[in-house]
């Protein structure tokens, strides 16, 4: 009870007890940071191969990684109470922008995802929602008794569904899945009954034919069909899967050696720098290389979940845990699609793929996780 009371009266700056370590004082978890840095460095090594001599691209990525680290540090400094307070506004602003983007957004590669503020910058509101949605659900649930009741589960799902739907119609299925996954993760961590979870899974399976018929677009259906039979359209939709599995499979146990991958160097592998970069890992560094990367990822998840469980509030735990699980969904969807067990959706490999937006969001997410753990006394 006292804790609850305290939570409602957060005291900014009233930090840490006397026993806090140096790392707690700068609100950074050194173990997680070390693991993240391991993945980042691994990613830069692979990227140096995937850019195929284009040093400008590599330098650009290094700069973005720098910005992402800054985002991590800054996010870690902000106290959980502030996140709690801003969670609903962040969500509402994000939702508003998502709706706005459908009307005034800029279309890139056939999908309307970007808001352009002329002369300033361009950004994707959907990226913001990867953090805002789990925060909003956690904000909603932390006031309720957990595990959540049917009613609260329903409202939580509504909070998730609105932005997920808005992103899905952009269309950006990959981000939509990640956003929905982030929100659902909160529910799972909040103790949603296993029975309901199983029931929901059964329901989705039963509704699959309807989804197929009425929700999925032609190109999305095509991608799913291609997954089962890539050779049906070897030069079109099947090309990516054929070439990425060929790249990974041809790498064997130890790989062809860094910079030696014929699939990526000879341009057979599409999107080798971005979404399909794990195929470069598989081809050049082999099973050993991917296993090493997966191990780092698993350690990050383990450490992240541990930190989440050590957070000082339900809100903190739920947000931190959900961000960790989102990170997992990211990497799972990406590797599964590149290795040909999920349809191709646009999800980058976290911290490795070339590109700034997702790296910054992910690192900010890790900053938030650290914040939830290191700001103890609230």
């Amino acid at each position: 009870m006292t804790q609850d009371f305290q939570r409602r009266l957060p005291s900014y700056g009233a930090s840490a007890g006397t026993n806090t370590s140096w790392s707690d004082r700068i609100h950074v978890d050194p173990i997680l940071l070390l693991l993240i840095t391991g993945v980042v460095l691994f990613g830069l090594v692979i990227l140096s191969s995937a850019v195929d001599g284009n040093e400008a691209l590599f330098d650009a990525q290094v700069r973005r990684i720098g910005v992402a680290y800054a985002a991590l540090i800054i996010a870690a400094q902000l106290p959980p109470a502030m996140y709690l307070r801003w969670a609903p506004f962040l969500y509402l602003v994000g939702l508003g922008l998502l709706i706005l983007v459908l009307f005034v957004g800029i279309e890139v590669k056939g999908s309307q995802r970007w808001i352009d503020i002329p002369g300033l910058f361009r950004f994707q509101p959907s990226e913001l929602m990867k953090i805002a949605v789990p925060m909003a659900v956690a904000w909603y649930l932390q006031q309720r008794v957990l595990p959540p009741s049917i009613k609260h589960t329903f409202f939580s799902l509504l909070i998730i569904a609105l932005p997920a739907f808005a992103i899905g119609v952009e269309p950006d299925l990959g981000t939509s899945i990640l956003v929905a996954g982030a929100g659902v993760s909160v529910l799972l961590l909040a103790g949603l009954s296993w029975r309901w979870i199983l029931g929901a899974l059964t329901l989705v399976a039963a509704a699959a034919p309807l989804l197929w018929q009425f929700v999925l677009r032609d190109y999305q259906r095509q991608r799913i069909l291609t997954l089962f039979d890539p050779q049906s359209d070897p030069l079109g939709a099947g090309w990516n899967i054929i070439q990425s599995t060929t790249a990974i499979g041809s790498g064997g146990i130890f790989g062809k050696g860094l910079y030696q991958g014929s699939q990526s160097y000879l341009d057979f592998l599409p999107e080798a720098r971005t979404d399909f970069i794990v195929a470069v890992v598989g081809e050049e560094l082999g099973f050993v290389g991917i296993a090493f990367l997966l191990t780092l990822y698993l350690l990050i998840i383990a450490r992240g979940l541990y930190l989440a469980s050590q957070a000082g509030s339900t809100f903190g735990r739920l947000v931190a845990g959900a961000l960790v699980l989102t990170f997992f969904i990211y990497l799972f969807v990406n590797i599964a699609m590149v290795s040909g067990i999920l349809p191709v959706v646009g999800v980058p490999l976290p911290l490795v793929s070339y590109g700034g937006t997702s790296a910054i969001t992910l690192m900010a997410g890790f900053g938030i996780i650290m914040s939830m753990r290191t700001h103890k006394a609230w």
Partner: protein
Amino acid sequence: MSLELSIKDPGREQDMFADRAIALFVVVVLMFGVLVARLVTLQIVEHETYQSRADDNRTKIQTLAPSRGMIYDRNGRILADNKTSFSLAIVPERTDDLDALLHSIVEILTLTPQHLGRIRNALDKPRRPDSAVVVLEALSEKQVAMLAVNRHRLRGVEVTSQLIRSYPMGELAAHAVGSVRRLTKEDLRTVEPVQYSGSQFIGKRGVEAFYEKSLHGKVGYQKVETDAYGRVRRVLEVQGAQTGQNLTLHLDSRLQVASVAALGERRGAIVALDPRTGGVLAMVSQPSYDPNLFVTGMSISTFDDLASSIYLPLFNRAVNGQYAPGSTFKPVVGLAGISSGVTQWSETIEDKGWFQLPGQERVYRDWSWTKDDSGGQGQVDLNRAIYRSSNVYFYDLASRMEIGSLLEFASQFGLGRNVAVDIPEASTGLLPTPEWKRKAKNQPWYPGDSVNLGIGQGDLLATPMQMATVAAAIANRGKVVRPKMLLSSDVSIDEVGTIDELPSVLGLDGEDWELMIDAMENVVHRGGQGFRGNGTAWAYIGQQVGYRMAGKSGTAQVVEITQGEEYDEEQLSEFRRKHAWFIAFAPVDDPTIALAVLVENGGGGSSVAAPVARAIIDAHLTEELASIH
């Protein structure tokens, strides 16, 4: 406060979170297991499949077409060589927007809408996926440069270079050298397809066809690494192509040019042989065609003009034109009479200007009948019968000879068969035997047939090359040589196996040959004796000759022409005119050239064909003298 708040228990929530985190972590680990299982399948279990798939992706075998052997004339001048030609090819799969690409190409190369139409037609033809379609050939240097400069705009476009055949002499030597044509599916059935996998052309006529195997060379291959767009990044392995053999022909291109010039605009054929070897020094068939057109391509109307012209420019008259030899056959008949003993050099007959077979009414006239009404050439021996070209003498001689032995004798000169070493397409001509006549015409052999044969008419047919062979055999005093195109090659050639030399003409001694050659010298050189005393050709070519030559004129009746309805009256009369022949050799004591000239529908042999022959021999001997000094 609501009920729920009252039972909210932070401690329990934290425990529950821990439980959930652990449970979900287990799920995460299981799903990692799924990924690892997939990777194990791809990278360990099925590694070899994907390895070979990656290799297939990356490596391709390309064939390397051998460059075709060169053809030189006896003086080392080029008759057929190879030049680089650039083509524009498109791989439609490699471009995102074919229309935009075509638009760019049209703009860069400033092409016409007709070009664009042709490009589209080429692209519409069925083909292998990912293969390059050649859409424009024979690009200019400037066009190649423009394409190189704009390469960034032209994804899916390739500029390829290949060696194509080039005939520097063009029309002048088309029938002598032959030509290559674009390789067709039908061709691939007759050759080893692998050898031609990189080739676009195949020898189709003449020397190019006969020596195809040696000229073509052997195909090579290279294993290359290509990128996803099919561009070669590096060469992994090379097995070079083996260049085709260079060939040197007996042909003398200067004499060839002189021969074409001597014939001028007239239709006809010339074959000049070196009597010592049988080597073909010149081979002309007019009208001719430009063999380069068959390499670089021509418009349909140009081809139609060539193929359907009534003057048959694609027809090689020199070896395939079969004509009655007319009086040029008389030396053979005369020698046959001597060898069989039916006549002697001293024997004379009375030429009254006409001939009748005993008991028959038909009158066979002498050619001079129309010129001089007085009729007849008077007393004629074989020598005079040759230089005056007395028909009556040869009517009489042939009618007295046994037909079988006459034909057998004639056959020794290569008549009625193709004796050429490396011109398999040459026609055999026709020595009409009684057996042949029964089969072909279902008629018996009449004595009149023998009479006609005596002056080289009737069903007798010979090609200019065969008559040149006859001239060479007389020049050689009976040694018969086989016409032959090839003089030498870098290494020995497969195409020509061992070919027996032809036996010399039997039944005559050296004196007989000299007497016949004297008679033929008289044809050219005997002059200033009045109409009945002069050689038939003296008036036309016999003056101011710096050497001694022997010759025989012929004026062959066009026995039959197809009464094609499409010929108008003027053309009909043109095609009805007599063929002019002249066979000759020189210098008589040591002949280095023997030739036959035929001018189709040209008229008199002495007046029309003989000057052509003289001009050619002049050119040959002048050149020969020039090359000696």
